[in-house]
C-alpha cells in the first residue's frame, strides 16, 4: 500500500510499504477512505517531537471501512464504516474505565520511554513517535487498529466523510478544551490560535453557552473563519493584544483562555525571539509565547485550557500569575471516545457541520506538498483532507 512516511525533520515522503495485518486478537484492519493532516503533525515535520524514526507512517485522523477483525473483536464487522479516535485505548484499565481514554495504561508498548520523560506513560497514539507507542498511522491506504472493540466508532451513512472525519481528533479536542473552561452562560472565552482546533474550540464554546468568543490569530482567513462562527478577532502579531482584551472585557480579562497554538508559537514580543533562540540552541524544547499571553490575560480566578501540544520542558512560564491570580490550568490529550456520542448528536442535529474547516482536498500523493502548504499557511490552507483510494 502507499503510506505517508516521516523521513526526517522537514522530510515527508510517500512510500510503498507492506499492507498491515492483524497482530493481536483485538486488532482490526481499516481501509481508509479519508485521512487528514493535523496541526500536531506539523510538530513532527519540524522535528519538535522526539523519538521519531525514519520510515514511520504518519497520521492520526482517519476513517474508513472495516476490512478484517481479529477474533477478539465482537462489536465490529467487515464493511462497517467507522471513524478511528487518535488515542489507542484498551477500555479495561482504571483510566479507561474512568473515561480518561488518553491516559490508557496499557496501549503504549514503549511506556518505559514516556515514563522517562513524563513519569507515567499516557496512551499510545497513531503515528506520533515511538515514545507514544510507535504505532503506524493512518495517512495510508490501510491501517491496523489495536483495541478495535473500543476505539472505532460507527457513523451513519447519511453523513459524509468530511462531516464525521474530525470526530477522530480536532472536534473533540476543541470541545474538550471548551468543556475544560467550565463555561458559565454568557462567559467571555479567548482562543489563541485559529487553526482547526481553535476553530472547533470557538464553536464548542458557543455550544456550551459562551456569550462572547475572542479569537486571536495573525492569518486573515483564519480570523474570517472565526468571525463566521460569531467570534470577535484580534491579530496575534498586534503588540497590544493584552490591552485590547482588557478593554474588550471592561478591565476584567476573559473568563477563560484557550491556548490552541502549542509549542511552536509565534509572537510579536521579545519573549518569542528568546524562545526561538533557546529552542534552536537546544536549550528549551517548546516555544510558549501563546501560553504566556493566555496566562497573563486571563481574569483572576479564571481557567487556562491548553489543547495545544507541548512536549517537554517549558521555559519562563509565568507561574507566579497562575498562583497570584488563582488560575485553574486544564490540559491533556483528548479523551476522544468519551465525547463521540454527544458530538455525533450535535452533527446530526445540525448544530455544527464540521466540514466547514476543510480548505484542501487532495490525494495521498500530495502529502509532501500539503504538509508544507499547511505549515506555511500558504494558499489559505486551514485543513487538508486526503483520499487514499
Amino acid at each position: 500500500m502507499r503510506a505517508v512516511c516521516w523521513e526526517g525533520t522537514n522530510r515527508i515522503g510517500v512510500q510503498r510499504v507492506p499492507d498491515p495485518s492483524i497482530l493481536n486478537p483485538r486488532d482490526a484492519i481499516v481501509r481508509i477512505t479519508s485521512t487528514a493532516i493535523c496541526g500536531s503533525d506539523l510538530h513532527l515535520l519540524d522535528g519538535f517531537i522526539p523519538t521519531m524514526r525514519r520510515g514511520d507512517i504518519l497520521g492520526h485522523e482517519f476513517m474508513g471501512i472495516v476490512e478484517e477483525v481479529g477474533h477478539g473483536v465482537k462489536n465490529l464487522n467487515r464493511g462497517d464504516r467507522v471513524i478511528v479516535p487518535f488515542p489507542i485505548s484498551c477500555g479495561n484499565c482504571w483510566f479507561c474505565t474512568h473515561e480518561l481514554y488518553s491516559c490508557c495504561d496499557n496501549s503504549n508498548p514503549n511506556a518505559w520511554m514516556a515514563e522517562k520523560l513524563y513519569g507515567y506513560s499516557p496512551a499510545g497514539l497513531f503515528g506520533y513517535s515511538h515514545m507514544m507507542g510507535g504505532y503506524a498511522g493512518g495517512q495510508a491506504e490501510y491501517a491496523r487498529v489495536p483495541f478495535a472493540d473500543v476505539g472505532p466508532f460507527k457513523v451513519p451513512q447519511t453523513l459524509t466523510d468530511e462531516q464525521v472525519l474530525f470526530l477522530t481528533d480536532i472536534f473533540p479536542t476543541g470541545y474538550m478544551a471548551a468543556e475544560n473552561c467550565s463555561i458559565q452562560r454568557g462567559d467571555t472565552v479567548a482562543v489563541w490560535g485559529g487553526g482547526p482546533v481553535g476553530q472547533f474550540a470557538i464553536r464548542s464554546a458557543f455550544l456550551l453557552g459562551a456569550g462572547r468568543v475572542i479569537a486571536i490569530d495573525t492569518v486573515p482567513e483564519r480570523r474570517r473563519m472565526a468571525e463566521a462562527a460569531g467570534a470577535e478577532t484580534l491579530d496575534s502579531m498586534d503588540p497590544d493584544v493584552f490591552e485590547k482584551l482588557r478593554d474588550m472585557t471592561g478591565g476584567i480579562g476573559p473568563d477563560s483562555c484557550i491556548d490552541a497554538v502549542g509549542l511552536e508559537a509565534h509572537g510579536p514580543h521579545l519573549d518569542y525571539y528568546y524562545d526561538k533562540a533557546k529552542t534552536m540552541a537546544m536549550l528549551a524544547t517548546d516555544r510558549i509565547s501563546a501560553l504566556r499571553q493566555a496566562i497573563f490575560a486571563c481574569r483572576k480566578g479564571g481557567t487556562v485550557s491548553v489543547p495545544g501540544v507541548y512536549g517537554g520542558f517549558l521555559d519562563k512560564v509565568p507561574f507566579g500569575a497562575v498562583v497570584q491570580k488563582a488560575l485553574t490550568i486544564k490540559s491533556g490529550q483528548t479523551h476522544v471516545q468519551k465525547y463521540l456520542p454527544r458530538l455525533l448528536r450535535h452533527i446530526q442535529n445540525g448544530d455544527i457541520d464540521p466540514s466547514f474547516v476543510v480548505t484542501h482536498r487532495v490525494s495521498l500523493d500530495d502529502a509532501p506538498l500539503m504538509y508544507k502548504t499547511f505549515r506555511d499557511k500558504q494558499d489559505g490552507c486551514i485543513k487538508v483532507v486526503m483520499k487514499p483510494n
Partner: protein
Amino acid sequence: MLAGAMLAGWGLRRRDTAGGAAALGAAALLYRGGTGHCHVYEALGVDHGRSRGTGIAADRFSDTRQRLGGRRGILVEESITINKPIAEVYRFWRDFEHLPQFMEHLASVTVRDAGVSHWVATGPAGTRVEWDATIINEVDNQVIGWQSLQGSTIATAGSVNFDETEHGTRVRVRLQYDPPGGRLGAMVARLFGEEPNQTIREDLRRLKRLLETGEIPTTEGQSSGRRTMVMHPSARKSGQHSYSQRPLRAGAAR
C-alpha cells in the same frame, strides 16, 4: 526462579541507565552486607516463624537461606496495580506455568508435584539455566513465597503479595538471588551494568496488560517505510514537491 529469568535475561536488555543500575546493585549488596537482613524471608515471615506454609522442614532450605542471608545476593522489589479482582490475579500467578507468558526470559515452568516445579530460563548466546523451586508459603489471595531447592545452580527466593486497593489489585514482588560462580558468575558480573528493576517492571507490566486486556499490545510486525526502497511511482511523480526525493535505502532504518 524469577530471579533466574531476570538474571539470564539482563544481557539482552537495552533499557540501561548504567550508573543508576550499578548503584542500585551496590546499594542492595551494601545493605545486605551491613545487616545480613533478608527482605524476602521477612515478607514471608519465615524468620519470625509466622509461616503458614506447606510445612516442609526448614533445614531442607538451609543451603539457600545461607547463600541469600550472607554478604552476597541481590534484592529486587517492584509493584504494579492491576484492575482485576484479587482472586483472579492470585489464581493466575499461583499456576506457575503461566509465568513464561509475561516473563520475557523464562522459557518454561513445569509443575511436578506438591509445590515443586522445574524452571528453565534462556539468556544471551543460548545460555540456559535450569533449577527446581518449591513453594514455602502461600495464603490464598494474599501471598505466595518460594525458593530454590538445595544444590540448585542459582540460589533464589521470592515472594509476591496481593492487596486490594481502590485502583485494583496491588501486586508486590520481592526477589533475591545469589549469582552462581564460574562461567555464569562471569556473565552476571558483566550484566551488572543493567537495571534489574526495569526488567521486572516490564515483566509486571506485561502481566497487567495480559490480565486487563487479554493481550500484550505490540507494534512488532506492523508496516513501516523502513524496509522498503521502492517509492511509489506517483510519489516519485510528485517528488518535486517532496522535502526528500531520496527513497530510503534498505537497512538504513533510523
